[in-house]
């Protein structure tokens, strides 16, 4: 990056001081990442979510723009750009304007530390996991600002709800992540992945019963932090009209959704990194394409993405299947169940590590068998639903 | 209990009152009750073991031209499965009827509607406001002599004949 900045400085912008050029290059890079990376991810996820939701609801979903409606998100984005940008008279203007960008910033910056493969990472921070949680907290500020700045009571209720919800759920998130950190002995995401292996019995998910539970705590807590159903209380459309984004329109409105879908991806990435072995690819497969080649990196990326999209699918399915919980029930769940169990898991992992420094293979295989049974049961249920369903429900993904 | 038994039961209790039953040419019979006694009669109807009217099915006002208003009570009993219609007549110049909201909570809204559309003044009602129409509406539309205002807050209520335009 610095070489690139110097190159730019020498070739094109020699009239400016180097620090300014550095800044320009950094913003340029961020712009490229935003346009070329995060936006398509968020957009594609929006397409995926809409198609899955449509299939769950016996609809077709977007299928007109581009092949199979794949470019629908571009059309929506362009449409939003051309929409009138309404700012209510009573709104607190500066807050109202900044809020969506802050929300998006929180999600966007977390992409910096996501390990896409063993070498493809923007910055392998030695406090990567802390950085992830810290940037997620910026989102709360944005949501509260949006709620307050709109000058609408519904928005304010939504903002307050999101503040209460996200801050509460940071605690179980941190506790659950702590189990993986304890096992790896590092806060760096790359090192956490490197400490695991490509095979399921090497993942932290199956390392011991406590990490097994911690995975589910982290899953629930991250879904709650992302304001996704069944925890979408801040924007509960039937209660608070639309919550914190009630007064927004056009591109600003879209930014909230960008953030939501980006979070969906980050959620999958965090879970994959901490518990599912990240980008790890089996040695033999890696050797067959050459361990140092670009193909190996792509293979790692594909493995990472696959794991993420399985989780994303689960979250999307969850959203379109269950109703919304109530505020007090959600708080109860966090403080009365997730937090104590989280503490229990952290203590459990610590004791486990003391007792069995090398792990217990028997427990690992038992957990794998149990999970496999659960997955099989899930498929059996889905199969039965398809079998019992009437003709029009048959799955045909390409309509 | 059929209509005649019901009426005689009420007349036993309120012997001194001018309670008269009336059979219409078609449809249901009904009972006239003096306006100042409606609360007592309804209390009796509700509490009496043989009548046991626990439900006020319908309460409404009817214009009785030229200068009277009727309030109609359709009573019903879930226990005994019988019903009875009561009517009260008041004059338009002083349309006061005691509210039965205390006896039957459902009367709260039904009386508000009767007040709004017919203009019966229910004395003792806890919250006698207009319910269907805006608070600043003039007149009671379901009266036969109701004259529509020319405009409401600057909005014309009439529209020109399309053929003459």
């Amino acid at each position, binding site marked *: 990056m610095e070489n690139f900045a110097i190159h730019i400085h020498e070739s094109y912008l020699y009239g400016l001081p180097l620090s300014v050029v550095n800044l320009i290059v950094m913003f340029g890079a961020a712009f490229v990442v935003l346009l070329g990376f995060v936006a398509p991810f968020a957009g594609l996820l929006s397409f995926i979510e809409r198609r899955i939701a449509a299939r769950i609801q016996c609809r077709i979903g977007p299928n007109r723009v581009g092949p199979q409606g794949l470019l629908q998100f571009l059309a929506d984005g362009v449409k939003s750009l051309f929409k009138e940008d309404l700012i209510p008279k009573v709104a607190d203007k500066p807050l109202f304007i900044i809020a969506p960008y802050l929300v998006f910033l929180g999600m966007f910056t977390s992409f910096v530390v996501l390990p896409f493969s063993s070498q493809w990472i923007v910055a392998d921070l030695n406090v990567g996991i802390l950085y992830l949680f810290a940037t997620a907290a910026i989102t709360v500020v944005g949501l509260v600002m949006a709620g307050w700045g709109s000058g609408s009571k519904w928005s304010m209720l939504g903002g307050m709800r999101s503040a209460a919800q996200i801050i509460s759920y940071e605690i179980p998130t941190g506790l659950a992540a702590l189990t993986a950190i304890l096992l790896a002995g590092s806060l760096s995401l790359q090192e956490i992945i490197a400490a695991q292996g490509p095979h399921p019995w090497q993942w932290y998910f199956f390392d011991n019963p406590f990490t097994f539970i911690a995975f589910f705590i982290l899953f629930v807590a991250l879904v709650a932090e992302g304001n996704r159903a*069944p925890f979408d209380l801040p924007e509960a459309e*039937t209660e608070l009209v639309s919550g914190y984004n009630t007064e927004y329109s056009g591109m600003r409105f879209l930014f909230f959704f960008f953030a939501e879908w980006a979070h969906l991806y980050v959620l999958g990435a965090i879970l994959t990194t901490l518990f599912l072995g990240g980008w790890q690819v089996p040695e033999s497969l890696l050797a067959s394409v050459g361990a140092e080649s670009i193909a190996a990196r792509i293979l790692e990326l594909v493995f990472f993405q696959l794991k993420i999209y399985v989780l994303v699918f689960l979250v999307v399915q969850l959203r379109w299947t269950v109703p*919304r919980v109530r505020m007090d029930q959600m708080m109860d769940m966090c403080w009365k169940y997730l937090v104590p169990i989280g503490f229990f898991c952290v203590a459990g992992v610590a004791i486990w590590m003391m007792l069995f420094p090398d792990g217990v293979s028997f427990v690992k295989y038992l957990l794998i068998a149990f999970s496999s049974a659960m997955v099989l049961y899930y498929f059996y249920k889905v199969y039965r639903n398809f079998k019992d369903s009437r003709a029009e429900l048959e799955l045909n993904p390409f309509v | 209990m059929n209509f005649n038994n019901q009426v005689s039961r009420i007349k036993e209790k309120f012997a001194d009152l001018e309670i008269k039953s009336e059979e219409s040419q*078609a*449809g249901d019979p009904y009972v006239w009750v003096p306006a100042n006694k409606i609360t007592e009669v309804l209390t009796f109807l509700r509490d009496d073991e043989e009548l046991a009217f626990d439900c006020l099915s319908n309460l409404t006002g009817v214009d009785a031209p030229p200068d009277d208003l009727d309030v109609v009570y359709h009573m019903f009993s879930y226990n005994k499965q019988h019903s009875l219609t009561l009517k009260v007549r008041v004059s338009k110049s002083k349309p006061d009827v005691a509210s039965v909201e205390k006896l039957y909570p459902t009367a709260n809204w039904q009386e508000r509607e009767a007040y709004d559309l017919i203009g019966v003044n229910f004395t003792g009602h806890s919250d006698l406001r207009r319910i269907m129409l805006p608070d600043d509406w003039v007149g009671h539309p379901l009266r036969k002599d109701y004259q529509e205002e020319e405009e409401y807050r600057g909005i014309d209520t009439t529209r020109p004949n399309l053929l003459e335009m």
Partner: protein
Amino acid sequence: MGIQTEEMMLNMGPQHPSTHGVIRFVVKSDGEVMTEAVPDVGYLHRSIEKIGEICEYNGFMPYTDRADYLSAMNANQGYAMVVEKLLGLEIPERAEYLRVIAAELNRIISHILSLGAVAMDIGAATPFVLALKEREKVNDLMEALCGQRLTYSYVRIGGVSYDMPPGFIERSLKFLADFEPFMDEFENLVPENKIFIERTAGVGVITREDAIAYNLVGPNLRASGVDWDLRRDMTYSVYPKLQFEVPVGVGSQGVVGDSFDRFIVRIKEIKQSISLLKQCFAQIPEGDFLGEIPRVMKPAVGECYVRTESSRGDMGYYLISDGSKNAFRVRIRTGSFTSMSIIEKISRGMMLADLVTFIASLDVVAPEIDR
């Protein structure tokens, strides 16, 4: 010294996603918990009762559709019955059967929409879409029957406007055979969901005494444990010839009369309607669909109050005739109006999210409140 706090006044409606039409609630809330919610109705008042005094008897029929557009057949039937009673008309048996078929199909339409709306208001979008999909099929049947999909005006004074089209019975039976498993699926999908139970059980409990005192009717009344159905207990039309059960709330997940009970009662009523329809299709006799009716309807002087079991319960028509071509007074007593009046009492101290559940579970329909 504590921090000074004050209640927040929230204006819920007339445009709010969960008020099902244009109803307004003035909510005073202390954060998430409300201190009171005062309903403000009248935004959809179209003075249907005044129109009834201006129209001739036949001409008022389409307006009864608009009184309750989700259950127009039942509203039609009630009005036809009250006029027939004043005129002393006998109507052919086939017409009675056709009316009941139409009314029960309409009950399915209305209830399935209500069930979907409850799930929607609790935050589950999918059941609503599934419910609407089935509703469309019933709408198709209705279209075959009378050419309309929402406001039918199918019932006429003295009978019905058209006979069944050829093949209607087969088509309906085919639909019902498909619809019955759907209801089982729906019952599996929604009321057995843990979050759904948590959100509805014990929420908005209406006791038996309150239900009668506030004159709740129909499924809401039955959910509170009152075993009462006009079709069975003050029977009319051909209902005495049909076998059906009256579902009553039992408080299977919480307290009798909670939102969950109201939901379950509606599901069970749909199943009863399916059985009623099958019986009707098996029994329906040949004959006229429209009886002998006078060219000019001039009922004798008198008055009549007729109650029918509409989708939202007891729908009462009070008609006064002064012997002329027009009614002297038409009064429509609807279930939603009285359901609405209980909200202020029950909603004290509820959470904001529960108010939404409660309103949805009462199945209030704005035009029916305001008329």
